[in-house]
């Protein structure tokens, strides 16, 4: 194999606190040309620092203290800065997670690409323009000749990431570092971008260092996988070995904590504790404290690399030939890792009691105002006639891409946004047009959990005050202080936090802990319905498992109904009882979770499900790649909203919106492919 990049014993420290943080601690890897190496790990384990070390673009507090980074034998760390400038963009390029932030908003796309071209070659103006068109066409931007003169705000999220890739490709790099390139994108767009990266790699024979936390993306893209934990790589393997026989206990536990359909009625396996602080020096294995198979030796000696197969190495004492445990643990699989099986399957029959919440033909339109007198110019049809119902103790998942109006539904159920039309019945009581004081009486029965654990808690209020707020606001007669304190203690214990935390401020907690506090805050008023607005999408896989377990146990113990707003299909499969798929303000398909997941009817649902990167390559349905982006809800397409992207569009789809098609008591869709009702 011809090795393109070789990193040897790279050590990078950050001097951000008193103790230097060893963000990357002795990392070695090799990437061959034309190969994709995936660096997998949770947040804070040093993935991005590795990428920035390769580019030598570390923040001011960062310092590479030892190691070598060779690209075709040239050690980058020995080069002076001016030589490094000709390497960046020319031989190594990088694309970042947030396409909205990595393009300059006041420069056109063409100017931004031109910048790279002038840096690395002397092209005449016309040649450069031609090259820009070429690059943009290469990344699949339609009508590149005209669109290249547009500004980033005129591009959608997926288009921006394509433009970003075009900029990265402008210097024809040998290595492309992609730092979470699709994390900020929707699944259908993610599928497009991953496809594009694969095509470009084949065409240019380029190496890709893919940094991600998403096992699905790794499964779709990588040839080689390196698992990073606490600043070092703990396992390296090719894709097949990695997914079929994960060797390191950390990797195994990571797989076990993924929500999947067959784990529905079990608690997810959880990795106890948190990633250790990288400021300390480690005496033994870094994972030993959280490992379920830790031995005495793990705490004493630093494990060395052990080869399992040709291309499969792991840094774990279990595989040391001196340790007799090796045989036992090498064959470990999911079922053994599941320590936390707690409940048996108890699938209840569909109950026919009156639902807890009924949303009937809900519409939320936001006026677009323009001109001097702010006259209403048009409407954004954020939610356009949605009907849902949730029974108590059940979970309804609302699935869809960003911008389809999921969150707006959640907020209008809570009356945080006034609906334009339709009705919301909670226990047969109309919520729309209730006065503030009337609403106050029933507010405690439905609450919300937000996506971003960092902005959902007031940084200036201690946890105790945060929790007390809702209790005080919604309790008719104020209770004694001692009672309140007891209540807070119970709440914190219920969400799995020690009671001392109530005296602390939110910034002292990690994302997962903050999300627990946010859940405790919602629980403080004993709600019967909890609207969860993407509660786990900002969290790591292992933390996500903890939160999902918590939510599930709350439902089992307290009988709370969830409206679970998400774009993560795996979570839906794991948690939901019923699913509603939304597209551009309307529900296109609705049904029991099995019906939707196993026999999706609407072409959009089918495409959505097939776009989700799968770990096990057992795809039976063909891949459906959607073209283009979600249209603007200010001007939804005529007829069926989905027809411009639909692979099976018919002439009638352009004319009228399809009526309901029913497949079973619960399963309905809106599509002309199926027989229409009335």
């Amino acid at each position, binding site marked *: 194999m011809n090795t393109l990049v070789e990193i040897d014993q790279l050590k990078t420290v950050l001097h951000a606190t*008193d103790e230097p943080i060893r963000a990357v601690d002795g990392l070695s890897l090799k990437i061959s040309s034309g190969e994709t190496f995936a660096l997998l790990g949770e947040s804070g384990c040093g993935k991005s620092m590795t990428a920035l070390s390769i580019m030598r673009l570390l923040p001011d507090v960062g310092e590479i203290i030892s190691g070598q980074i060779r690209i075709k034998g040239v050690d980058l760390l020995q080069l002076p800065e001016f030589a490094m400038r000709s390497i960046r963009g020319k031989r190594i390029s990088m694309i970042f997670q947030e396409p909205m932030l990595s393009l300059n908003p006041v420069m056109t796309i063409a100017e931004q690409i031109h910048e790279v071209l002038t840096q690395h070659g002397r092209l005449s103006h016309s040649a450069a323009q031609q090259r820009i068109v070429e690059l943009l066409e290469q990344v699949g931007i339609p009508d590149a000749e005209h669109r290249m003169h547009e500004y980033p705000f005129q591009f959608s999220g997926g288009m921006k990431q394509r433009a970003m890739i075009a900029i990265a490709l402008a210097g024809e790099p040998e290595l492309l570092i992609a730092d979470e390139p699709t994390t900020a994108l929707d699944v259908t767009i993610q599928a497009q971008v991953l496809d594009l990266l694969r095509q470009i790699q084949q065409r240019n024979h380029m190496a890709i260092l893919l940094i991600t936390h998403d096992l699905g993306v790794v499964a779709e893209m990588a040839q080689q996988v390196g698992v990073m934990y606490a600043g070092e790589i703990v396992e390296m393997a090719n894709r097949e070995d990695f997914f079929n026989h994960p060797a390191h206990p950390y990797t195994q536990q990571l797989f076990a904590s993924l929500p999947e359909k067959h784990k529905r009625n079990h608690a997810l396996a959880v990795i106890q504790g948190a990633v250790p602080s990288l400021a300390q020096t480690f005496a033994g294995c870094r994972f030993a404290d959280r490992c379920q198979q830790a031995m005495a030796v793990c705490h004493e000696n630093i494990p060395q690399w052990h080869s399992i197969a040709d291309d499969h190495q792991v840094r774990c004492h279990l595989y040391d030939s001196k340790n007799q445990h090796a045989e036992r643990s090498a064959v470990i699989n999911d079922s053994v890792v599941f320590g936390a099986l707690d409940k048996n399957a108890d699938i209840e029959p569909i109950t026919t009691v009156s639902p807890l919440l009924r949303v009937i033909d809900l519409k939320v339109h936001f006026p677009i105002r323009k001109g001097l007198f702010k006259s209403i110019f048009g409407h954004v049809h954020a939610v356009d006639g949605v009907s849902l119902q949730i029974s108590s103790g059940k979970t309804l998942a609302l699935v869809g891409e960003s911008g389809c109006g999921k969150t707006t539904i959640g907020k209008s159920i809570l009356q945080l946004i006034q609906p334009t039309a339709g009705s919301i019945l909670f226990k047969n009581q109309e919520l729309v047009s209730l006065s503030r004081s009337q609403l106050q009486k029933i507010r405690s029965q439905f609450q919300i959990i937000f996506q971003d654990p960092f902005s*959902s808690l007031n940084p*200036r209020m201690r946890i105790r005050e945060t929790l007390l707020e809702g209790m005080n606001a*919604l309790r008719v007669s104020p209770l004694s202080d001692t009672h309140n304190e007891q209540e807070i203690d119970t709440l914190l214990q219920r969400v799995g936090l020690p009671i001392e935390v109530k005296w602390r401020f939110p910034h002292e907690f990690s994302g997962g802990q903050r999300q627990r506090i946010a859940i405790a805050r919602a629980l403080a008023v004993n709600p019967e319905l909890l609207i969860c607005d993407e509660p786990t999408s900002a969290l790591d896989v292992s933390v996500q498992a903890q939160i999902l377990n918590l939510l599930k146990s709350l439902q089992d113990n307290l009988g709370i109904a969830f409206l679970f707003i998400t774009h993560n299909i795996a979570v839906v499969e794991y948690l939901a009882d019923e699913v509603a798929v939304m597209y551009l303000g309307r529900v296109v398909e609705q049904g029991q979770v099995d019906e939707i997941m196993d026999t999706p009817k609407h072409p959009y649902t089918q495409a959505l499900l097939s776009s989700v990167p799968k770990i096990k390559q057992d795809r039976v349905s063909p891949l459906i790649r959607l073209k283009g982006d979600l249209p603007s809800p200010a001007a939804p397409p005529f007829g069926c909203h989905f027809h411009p992207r639909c692979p099976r569009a018919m002439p009638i789809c352009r004319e009228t919106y399809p009526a309901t098609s029913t497949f079973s008591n619960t399963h309905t869709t809106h599509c002309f492919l199926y027989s229409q009702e009335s």
Partner: protein
Amino acid sequence: MPFDPVILWTDALIYLFVLMILIGMRYVRRHPHLLASWKRVGHSASGMSSLTVLLFFLLIGFLDTIHFRPALESTNAQSEPIYSVDVLSVLDILVTPLRIQVEKTYSAPLATHLYAKETIELPDGQQMRTFARLQYGGAHLQHLETEHTTDIWVRSLRGAGYGFAVWCLLLIALTAGLSKQDECSFKQSFGSIWQRTSEIPWYAILITLLVLLLLVGCVSALIGYYHILGTDKVGQDVLYQSLKSIRVALVIGTLTTLIMLPFALLLGIMAGYFRGWIDDVIQYVYTTLNSIPGVLLIAAAVLMMQVYIETHPDIFDTTAARADLRLLFLCIILGITSWTGLCRLLRGEAMKLRELEYIQAAHAFGVSHWRIITRHILPNVMHLVLIAIVMDFSSLVLAEAVLSYVGVGVDPSMISFGTMINAARLEMAREPMVWWALLAAFIFMLALVLSANLFANAVQHALDPRARTLRHSNRLKHRPHQSGKNTLPAITETNTVAKTNHHT
């Protein structure tokens, strides 16, 4: 009674302000978590040393606030005491030599002769044009050429010596107090102060205090004999003027802010939080107010006030009362015109905050608007308010100078930095140049505003729960390859505060 206490309007407001601070301190002392975060202010070395300087200024300002009218020596012992028409303050009494030793005209710092030549009549009847001897400055010297420099050195060293002695006493008292409090030996607590291991950075306070005491010692040893910072056009001591200006600066800086703050806070947050027609109304008000040139508005208001004062001379029993009312009115009108900037800033911030999820969550709980504003929005904009207040403080002191220049500032009989700077305009154009009045105003204002800025910065750092983890980064100065840069907002705010110092 040998004196008749006088409470002017601004005095009353200052007493009220001090009372509010005392009540606030009492409140904080009773709430452990508030006390804990305020105690952190005490851990910042720059904050504590600037507090020391600031307290020194505040002390001078406060001494200058206690006003009274001394009794005149009456010929008839039985009759009612007659009080002087001059209103004096405690500060005036403390620095009596500065107040009463008035020369004829300009003299340079520490000089013995006037700065300008004048014709004097010699005893033999001849006239001579020369630099006349000062009436007070260096008047005790017999042999000018030989004694002048030595005398200054001896006196200032002696003064510094006294200052040092006082400092030593304070040091011993402090160390003894600390050792009693921590129950350790005298030597241990002395060590912990100077090895910088004590929680409160006593070393920083002590060093600042040493510098201050040495200066005060020198100055107090010299004031009876020399004009340390020279004299102005009418021969008044510039040091005295500078000391008197401190109160005016503090009054304008604090009272204006107090008047402006309710407008800015309430209207700004309301506009950003409620949006809709409330936002429109508030926006129209402040854009209109902003588009009227501030100086014109202030001039009109002050002139109206002036007319009122002049047509009702009977309601003021002293000139000081008149000047004081004008100062108060100036504060009010400055306050009314200067809230727009902060208001706009807070509106934007409130608009950002109202969309945040913790406020949405509060809505979901049905928390009242007033409670959301006070519990969620106000604490999260306090850092902006604090910075704006400190930045405004220096600009208000300067605004006073500009207004005095136009003739609508403080009463001409009142000494302020503004009138000093205004006078310096002519003095700088003079040949030879008179530089000391401007320099004195500059140094005093710089020290005052800088210490206020640094202290506000320390307060903001200590009170922001998020900034606490960052305090370590200051200790990394010894690492050459990194400058302690940090991307967090708390640090950039520090820079904005630091920048304002250049404006002064």
